[in-house]
């Protein structure tokens, strides 16, 4: 990251965690998707500062089993900061450290600079072939079944899960991979959206255009994330069996189990949370 010279140093904890990963790379140090540990370490070191900003309380991370696994959280907060915090948590707090391969929106490769930063740090396009190949190689996959519908939630819908896609469940069945449900609480309060301005989103080619309550006063500064405290709860792994190409209705029953589990984890955390920031 030539643009950020003072930040282009590797955090010693990140370095130590990367040393413990076992990676399959080609002669030049890349995997087929463009993950490159030398760059990833720097990017994770920057991400770590964002992680620290949200002072996450993490519970149940030991529930992540060895080998292939799908990490399935709720999605919120307009920007994918929840994914970033989960990825850093798995690198620094899981034992042994896990490199998370996040499935991102299909249009991320169209964004200059973002596409290279994402690819070097292990993010891939959310596509069944990518996901299956990475699971088959025993990776931990991070997938948000709510997609952009989830992260673009407005304030009145906060912490209510929207419809889940079925793709993650079919892949879990096909690759015989367990699902670890995750609840993220705190991201909804970091960037608030009162209203999704769809015409503006369409104009800018974005999936949604959040209108922040303080936009008239602060302008674009309103979108700087507030230092809400994040709570990450990792549930027990869920194992599903059955044909991956089953009828939609039957897959939906399994999807609902995961969705309900995450919703109840969120509700439980919200009930005991005393303050948004403390």
């Amino acid at each position, binding site marked *: 990251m030539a643009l950020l010279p003072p930040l282009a140093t590797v955090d010693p904890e990140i370095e130590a965690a990367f040393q413990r990963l076992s990676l399959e790379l*080609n002669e030049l140090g890349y995997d*087929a998707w463009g993950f490159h540990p030398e760059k990833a370490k720097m990017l994770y070191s920057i991400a770590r500062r964002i992680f620290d900003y949200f002072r996450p309380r993490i519970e149940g991370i030991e529930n992540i089993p060895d080998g292939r696994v799908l990490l399935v959280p709720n999605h919120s907060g307009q920007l994918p900061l929840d994914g970033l915090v989960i990825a850093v948590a798995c690198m620094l707090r899981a034992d042994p450290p896990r490199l998370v391969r996040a499935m991102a929106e299909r249009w991320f490769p169209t964004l*200059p600079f973002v596409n290279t930063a994402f690819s070097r740090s292990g993010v891939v*396009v959310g596509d069944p072939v990518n996901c299956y190949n990475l699971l088959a190689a025993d990776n931990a996959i991070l997938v948000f079944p709510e997609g952009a519908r989830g992260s673009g939630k407005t304030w009145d819908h906060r912490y209510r899960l929207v419809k889940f896609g079925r793709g993650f469940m079919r892949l879990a069945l096909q690759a015989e991979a367990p699902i670890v449900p995750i609840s993220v609480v705190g991201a909804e309060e970091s960037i608030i959206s009162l209203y999704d301005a769809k015409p503006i989103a369409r104009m800018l080619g974005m999936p949604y255009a959040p209108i922040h309550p303080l936009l008239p006063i602060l302008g674009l500064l309103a979108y700087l994330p507030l230092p809400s405290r994040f709570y990450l709860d990792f549930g027990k792994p869920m194992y599903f069996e059955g044909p991956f190409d089953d009828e939609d209705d039957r897959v939906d029953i399994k999807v609902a189990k995961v969705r309900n589990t995450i919703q109840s984890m969120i509700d439980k955390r919200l009930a005991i949370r005393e303050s948004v920031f403390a």
Partner: protein
Amino acid sequence: MATVLITGIAGSLARLTALRMLVDGHRVVGVDYRPPPKAHPSTIPYTQANYNKTRIEDVFRKEKPEVVLHLGRVGNLKVREGKRFDLNVVGSAKIMELSLKYGVDRLVVLSTFHIYGAHHANHIPIYEDEPLRAATRFPQLGDAVQLDNMAVQWTYRHPRLRTLVLRPCNVIGPQINNAISRFLRLPRIPFLLGFSPMWQFIDQSDMVNALHLAWQSNAVGVYNIAGTGAVPLRKALSLTGRKLLPIPAPAAHGYVRYFPGMRAFPPYLIDFFKYPVVVSDDKFRQDTGFQATIGIAESLQRL
């Protein structure tokens, strides 16, 4: 020992493949629509003939080849679109028909990975049975897609011919003169600012080896061919040791069109500078025992 007819013999890949076959004691005859280059070795008989004209049939009639390596796809966009269609589509159809008519035992058609098309939603890797997106965004690539489609149909319509269709990634080498090798030899290599998709390269010597293993194998059907792995484009360009020139993506089409040094650069390649097309060659390696030996860095450094 076999008699081998090689099309596109004026090109370096075909010539290198022919020389390799001569070493093994095969008889090689070459055809091309272009006049023979100065470098053409006298050991390989050369016939100048359009693939879509009757003269090509005389070569089949006289030489009775058992093996046809159709390496003569015209990738060069400077050749008029109409002529390219005649050579690539009409001409290839003719060569396939003549191979059938004159009892050829083995037909190898050289296609390209470009026909998959660079697209932001492409997954990694791409396998042989996937849709070919290229022509939807760049109709100029329609002839390449159609050539490939015809050859693939041929594999099952005429099993006697034992047809192989090869879709290699970027073939590069000191003697190769395709668009990419020429591009990588520019004194200042342009790239799109903020983009660096994964690219694959195969060295000319590995590609000759792949062709050699391919026609002698029992494999029939479509195969991707890749080198030793994928590397971000920026990294690949820096490995050439040349100076790099960042171009903002919105200016790319104008730059390619108006900058004098870029006249020969096909605009359809611009998308490949943004989005990855990484192919899987697992099937080819399994069925032929192929293994690329020249590393990406080495290959780029000796361009």
